[in-house]
C-alpha cells in the first residue's frame, strides 16, 4: 500500500503548520534550557543553601561550669541543668483547666500568669530555673506557644556556711561574687557548635563540620577544709549569738603554707535562695572590711624593738602609774601593775608600755614592719573587694600617733591581713603567702624578722594565755597556745564610739611547732562582756581544739583539765 497514494493524505496540508509546530516546540525547549541555566548556574548558591537547610542543622553544644570542691574533693558548688519556661503570648492557647495545672506546676497564682502574658508581646519568661521533672510535666500539658530551654543552675550544698567565700552566679551562670567571680575565667565553660545532617525523623545521621569545640569549665580545688569551715562557722555563730554582736568573722590559716583553711562571716545568707539580701549579709568581712585592730598589733612593735636590740623580753619598762602624757593627749592602762618587763607588757597588754617602747623607735622602722607584714596593701588573693587597710606614710606621723599605733589605733587592717601577719611569729619570722586554692608545692615565705626574735615573741604570746595574761580562755587542753587579745573602740564619725567595741583574738598552736593560725573578730559585742579575752578567745579555743583534733596534730602539753581563773578576775586590756 502506498501511503502517498492514500486518499486521506491527498489534500496537502499547508507547510506552515508543521513549521509553526516545530518552532513552538523549539521555543519550549529554549525556555526550559534558559530556566535550567538560571537555576543551575545563576541561582545555584541560594538554592543549594535552601536545600541544605532542609536537612542540615547547626546545633549548640552546651558546656558546663566547673565544680568547686574543698581541699579533700568534697563538692561545694555544682551546676546542674534546669529548664526555663517561656511563652509567645500571641500564640498561647489554653483552657482554664490547663492554666490551673500550669499555675500549680510553676507554683505561681493563675492571675500572675495572665498578667505576665498580657504585659509582654513576643517573648516572656514565665518561670526560670525549674527542676527537669517539673519541666517534663509542663511540656506534657501540650500548650501551644509555651516553650522551654535548658539552663544551668548552681547549687551550694553547704549553704550559708560558705556563702561569702564562694559567692554566687547569676541566672546566666556567670560568677557575680566571691570565688565564682574571682575565678570566672577558669570555671566558665565555652559552649561550642557543630553542623550536622538530620534525617526525616530528626535523628542526626552525619557530622559535617565542627564549627567550635565546646569547652567545659575546669574544676577548682580550694584550700578550704569543709569540716574546719563548718566547725569555725558554728562556733562563730554561737559566739555572735551569745555576745549579741552585730557581726563576726573568723579566719583559719595553715601556718606552714598560708592556705586559708576556713573563713566564715556573720551575718550570712543562703546562696541557694537569694531573695531579700542585704549588703551586710553579702560582705565577706574578713577580707573586704578593715578595722582598727587594737592590741593584737602590739607584738609587731615589740618585735621591731627586739629586732633592733632596743629591748629584751626582760627589760623593765616604767609603766607605774598607768598613764603616759604626750602633748595634750594621755594614754591609759585599764589596770595598774607598777613597772613591768617587756614580756609582761605583752602578757597584760599594757598600752603605756607599748607606747613607751614605740617612742624609742624610729617611725620608719615601725612603718617598715607594718608594710612588710602586708598591712596597707591588698592581700595577694585577687578576691573581689579586698581591703588594703590604712597605714599612713611614716613622715606624717606625730609622736602621739606613733605611740597609739603601737597598740593598734590609727591604723586599720582586715582580719585576713592580721591572721597572715601572725605567720611571722608562727613560722620563725617568715611571712607566708596567702592562698584560697590548694597548694601542693612547697611554699617559700618571706623572712621579715629573725628566727630568734620570732621565738622570743612566741614565748611572750604564750604568756598571754597563762593565768595573769589577758586571754586564758584561749587555752586548749593538751596543746601549748600562743596568741594576743584585742579590744578596740569602734571608729564612728571620725572619732571613737564610747560604748562600741571590736573584740578580737589572734593566735596559733601548738606553740612548739605551730600548725594553725586562727583570727577571730566580733563586731560590737553588746551582752555586757566586750573584751577580746572574754568573747573572742573562747571561739579561738573551741575552733583550735576541734581543728587540731581533726588534723591529728600530736599534743605538746599534758592532757590535764584547765583551771580558769574565777569569773570576774580576768585582766581586761586597756584598749
Amino acid at each position, binding site marked *: 500500500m502506498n501511503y502517498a497514494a492514500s486518499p486521506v493524505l491527498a489534500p496537502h496540508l499547508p507547510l506552515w503548520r508543521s513549521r509553526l509546530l516545530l518552532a513552538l516546540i523549539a521555543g519550549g525547549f529554549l525556555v526550559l534550557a534558559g530556566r535550567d541555566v538560571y537555576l543551575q548556574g545563576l541561582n545555584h548558591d541560594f538554592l543549594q543553601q535552601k536545600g541544605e537547610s532542609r536537612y542540615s542543622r547547626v546545633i549548640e553544644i552546651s558546656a558546663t561550669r566547673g*565544680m568547686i570542691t574543698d581541699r579533700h574533693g568534697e563538692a561545694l558548688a555544682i551546676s546542674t541543668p534546669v529548664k526555663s519556661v517561656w511563652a509567645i503570648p500571641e500564640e498561647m492557647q489554653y483552657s482554664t483547666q490547663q492554666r490551673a495545672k500550669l499555675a500549680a506546676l510553676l507554683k505561681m497564682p493563675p492571675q500572675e500568669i495572665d498578667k505576665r502574658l498580657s504585659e509582654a508581646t513576643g517573648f516572656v519568661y514565665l518561670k526560670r530555673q525549674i527542676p527537669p521533672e517539673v519541666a517534663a510535666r509542663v511540656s506534657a500539658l501540650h500548650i501551644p506557644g509555651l516553650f522551654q530551654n535548658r539552663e544551668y543552675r548552681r547549687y551550694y550544698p*553547704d549553704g550559708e556556711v560558705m556563702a561569702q567565700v564562694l559567692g554566687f552566679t547569676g541566672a546566666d551562670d556567670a560568677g557575680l561574687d566571691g570565688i565564682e567571680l574571682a575565678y570566672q575565667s577558669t570555671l566558665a565553660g565555652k559552649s561550642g557548635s557543630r553542623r550536622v545532617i538530620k534525617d526525616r525523623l530528626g535523628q*542526626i545521621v552525619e557530622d559535617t563540620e565542627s564549627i567550635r569545640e565546646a569547652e567545659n569549665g575546669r574544676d577548682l580545688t580550694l584550700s578550704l577544709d569543709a569540716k574546719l569551715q*563548718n566547725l569555725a562557722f558554728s562556733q562563730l555563730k554561737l559566739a555572735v549569738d551569745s555576745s549579741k554582736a552585730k557581726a563576726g568573722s573568723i579566719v583559719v590559716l595553715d601556718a606552714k603554707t598560708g592556705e586559708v583553711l576556713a573563713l566564715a562571716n556573720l551575718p550570712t545568707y543562703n546562696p541557694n535562695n537569694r531573695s531579700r539580701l542585704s549588703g551586710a549579709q553579702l560582705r565577706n568581712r574578713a577580707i573586704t572590711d578593715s578595722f582598727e585592730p587594737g592590741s593584737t598589733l602590739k607584738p609587731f612593735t615589740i618585735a621591731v624593738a627586739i629586732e633592733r636590740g632596743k629591748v629584751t623580753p626582760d627589760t623593765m619598762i616604767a609603766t607605774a602609774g598607768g598613764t603616759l602624757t604626750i602633748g595634750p593627749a594621755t594614754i591609759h592602762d585599764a589596770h595598774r601593775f607598777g613597772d613591768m618587763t617587756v614580756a609582761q607588757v605583752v602578757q597584760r597588754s599594757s598600752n603605756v608600755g607599748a607606747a613607751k617602747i614605740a617612742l624609742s623607735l624610729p617611725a620608719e622602722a615601725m612603718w617598715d614592719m607594718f608594710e612588710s607584714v602586708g598591712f596597707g596593701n591588698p592581700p595577694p588573693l585577687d578576691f573581689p573587694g579586698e581591703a588594703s587597710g590604712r597605714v599612713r606614710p611614716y613622715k606624717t606621723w606625730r609622736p602621739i600617733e606613733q605611740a597609739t599605733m603601737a597598740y593598734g589605733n590609727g591604723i586599720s587592717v582586715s582580719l585576713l591581713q592580721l591572721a597572715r601577719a601572725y605567720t611571722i611569729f608562727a613560722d620563725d619570722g617568715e611571712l607566708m603567702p596567702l592562698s584560697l586554692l590548694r597548694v601542693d608545692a612547697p611554699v617559700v615565705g618571706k623572712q621579715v624578722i629573725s628566727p630568734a626574735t620570732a621565738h622570743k615573741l612566741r614565748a611572750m604570746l604564750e604568756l598571754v594565755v597563762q593565768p595573769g595574761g589577758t586571754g586564758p580562755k584561749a587555752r586548749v587542753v*593538751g596543746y601549748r597556745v600562743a596568741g594576743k587579745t584585742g579590744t578596740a573602740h569602734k571608729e564612728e564619725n571620725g572619732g571613737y564610739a564610747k560604748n562600741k567595741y571590736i573584740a578580737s583574738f589572734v593566735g596559733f598552736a601548738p606553740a612548739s611547732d605551730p600548725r594553725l593560725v586562727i583570727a577571730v573578730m566580733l563586731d560590737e559585742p553588746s551582752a555586757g562582756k566586750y573584751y577580746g579575752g572574754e568573747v573572742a578567745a573562747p571561739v579561738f579555743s573551741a575552733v583550735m581544739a576541734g581543728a587540731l583534733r581533726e588534723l591529728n596534730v*600530736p599534743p605538746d602539753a*599534758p592532757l590535764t583539765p*584547765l583551771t580558769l581563773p574565777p569569773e570576774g578576775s580576768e585582766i581586761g586590756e586597756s584598749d
Partner: protein
Amino acid sequence: MARLNLILLALLTACALGLVTSQDKTRKLFAELEHEQEQAKQLDVEWGQLQLEQSTWAMHARVEKIARERLHMSVPDAKRIQMVMPAAAGAGE
C-alpha cells in the same frame, strides 16, 4: 564485547548497592554513637546531681546533729582522753 559490558554492568550494580548499604550502615552507626554520647552526657548530669545529693546528705552540720541527738554521741573531754605516744614508752597523763 557484549559479554564484557554485561559483566561491567553487573559489577557496577554491585558497587552501587555496596555503597548504598555502607552509607546506610554508617548512618545507623552514627545515630547509635550520637545516642550513646547523649546518654553519656545524661549520665554526667545525673552524676552531678548525685554528687549534689551526696554532699547534701553528708553536710557536716547534719551529721553532727544526728550524732548528737539521735546517737547521743559527744566529743570526749580532756579527763577521758588517754594519749598514747608512739615515741614514749608510757601513755600521757
